[in-house]
Structures are given as structure tokens and as C-alpha cells.
């Protein structure tokens, strides 16, 4: 994986957009923990697609098909907010720190050897975030 990472193309910075105040922003989570609903198709090795997780998801309805055996799942088992901080966002929205929580969140498989292969899915999620009037994407790499 490290050898493949060495060959990856650097990602150029995107044009800067001054954001709205956080208290006016709708926030969505984009995770690479391989999370999905129990009823969804699980991720396979090297999957470059994504799954949608509804904003009213119950953690009991989510499972993880991330392929790596080397990262610690015990913390997530204890508190799913470690990888998918939905409760924290709901609290921040209730306290007025953010404007709201998106109706949909997005999950990818981590441990990706080829970032370029994710371009299509990434752009698609970008369009979905925009159409959902999401202002801030909280990226949670796992």
C-alpha cells in the first residue's frame, strides 16, 4: 500500500470559497470507514462506489465491511461517533453551533490503493451534497 501511495498523483488545491458562518451551515459526514446499513450491499475489496446513510440513522442499523484487519474496531463498537459523529452533529445543531445536519451522509471503503479510480464517485457525491444544500462536508478518514 505504501509503495502504491508513493505513485499517487498529488491533488491540487481547489479554489478557495469563504464559507458561511458555521451556525448557518448544513453539515454532512463523508466517511471512509466502510460503514453501511445492514440492508445495503456490503463493500468489496477495492470498492470505489459509496453508500448513503440517512441523517436519522440508528447506529444499531449500521455495520462495517471495511477490509483492513489492522485497525481497531473496539472503539467504534463502544462509541460509533468515533468514526461517524452523527450524535455530536445533532447536539451541535440543537445548540445552534451549526445550522443543521444533512438528511444524507456518504460512506466509502477506505484502504484505497488508487485514488484516481474514485474520481467519478467523488464527483457524484459532490453533486449530491450540493443538491442537498450541504455547506460543509466533515471528512472522516479511517
Amino acid at each position, binding site marked *: 500500500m505504501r509503495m502504491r501511495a508513493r505513485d499517487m498523483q498529488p491533488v491540487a*488545491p481547489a479554489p*478557495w470559497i*469563504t*464559507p458561511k*458562518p*458555521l451556525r448557518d451551515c448544513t453539515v454532512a459526514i463523508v466517511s471512509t470507514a466502510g460503514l453501511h446499513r*445492514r440492508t445495503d*450491499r*456490503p463493500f*468489496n*475489496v477495492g470498492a470505489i462506489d459509496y453508500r448513503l446513510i440517512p441523517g436519522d440513522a*440508528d*447506529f*444499531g442499523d*449500521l*455495520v*462495517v*465491511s471495511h*477490509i*483492513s*484487519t*489492522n485497525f*481497531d*474496531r*473496539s*472503539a*467504534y*463498537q*463502544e462509541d460509533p461517533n468515533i468514526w461517524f459523529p452523527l450524535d455530536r452533529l445533532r447536539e451541535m445543531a440543537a445548540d445552534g453551533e451549526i445550522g443543521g445536519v444533512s438528511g444524507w451522509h456518504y460512506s466509502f471503503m477506505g484502504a484505497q490503493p488508487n485514488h484516481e479510480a474514485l474520481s467519478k464517485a467523488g464527483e457524484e457525491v459532490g453533486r449530491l451534497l450540493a443538491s442537498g444544500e450541504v455547506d*460543509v462536508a466533515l471528512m472522516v478518514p479511517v
Partner: protein
Amino acid sequence: MLQNAVEPTIEDYPIEAPVESGSREWSCPVSFAVTEDESISGRLLAEINLMAPWSAETRAARGRTLFGVTGAGPNQVEQVAKALGEIADDGNVNDLPAGDISWQFEMPLLIRHLVDDLRTFYHEAVAAQPGDNTPNHKALNDWIFSSTALGDGIQAIARHLTLAGDGASLMTRGLLVPEGYLAGGGSAFPTPAEIEKNTKA
């Protein structure tokens, strides 16, 4: 930070992350009697039955479980253990295990997730220990690979996958055993010689 930034910015978060809550110490070390002539299946089912009340306690306290990525229902732990035990004992890494579970993966990749589901169950059981000394990731790996039928089953299946020798089996072996825990040492991922052999085949 977002309120003030005028360009891409990376800043340290001003609040220190909490010290790791887990520990290498156990409040109540868990060990199982091993009988040399007993199958992995038999030992695995015995461990599952012993730990079931603890796992149930954790599930009740949390109100959820992460168990079930294989397609098994939350209460089908025994079936998952039976499936993994039979693969370890019989060495069949090609055919889906029998039973009424609608498996969500093909073989041999399913093995990877059978292990994950069982690890979830074991972790849940350990989490029911009294006190604050929850074992950390390293301590859990040490325990599973030195003291449990699950660890012995994983090592047995790793050997079966090596014998199978095809690319999918060798990659599954790499995804099965954490770095540093393969019996005999080294990484479980395919060696350069194994990759070359498969490339030529």
C-alpha cells in the same frame, strides 16, 4: 477556524485528545481450557457459549451490536462460529458454508468477515468486564491469538489459504491476520514469490 480562514488552512485543534482509555491490563483475565484432541469447531462453540451472557450484557447496555456484516442476524453467533470452525477443521476455503444464513460475500472473502463478526462478539464479551481497565487493541489481539480457539482457527485457516495458493486466497490470508500475528512470523499478505508464482500461472 472556519469563521476566519481566507485560504486552505490546517490548524491543530486546541483541545488535547483524551488519553487512550484502553489498557494492556485486564480487570479479569479470560482464559479457556484447551484439550489437544478437540476440534476448532468444538472449542469455538464452547467459547461462544461461555461468553454469550457477557456479550448479551454489553449489547443490552449499548442497545446495539456491530455483529452481522456477514449477513447473519444478531442472534446467529453460533452459526457463524460453526461456519468458521468447519472451515478451520476441514480446510474447504472454496464453498460457502451450509446453513440458512444468506451470506453477503463470496468465498474466500467471506472468511474475512466471519472472523470480523466473531471478533465483534469476543470484544463485546470482554467489554462486559467490571472496572475501567478495558483492554486496548493490542491486548485484544494478544489475547485472541494466544488464548482462544478463534485465534487458533484463524491460524489454521491461514495455512489452508496458503495451500490453496490462488491470488484471492492469499489476499484473504493477508486480510485475516493482523500484522505481527501470523504464526511463524512475517506478514500474512502474499510474499513476492507467491505473487510471482500466481502471475506466471
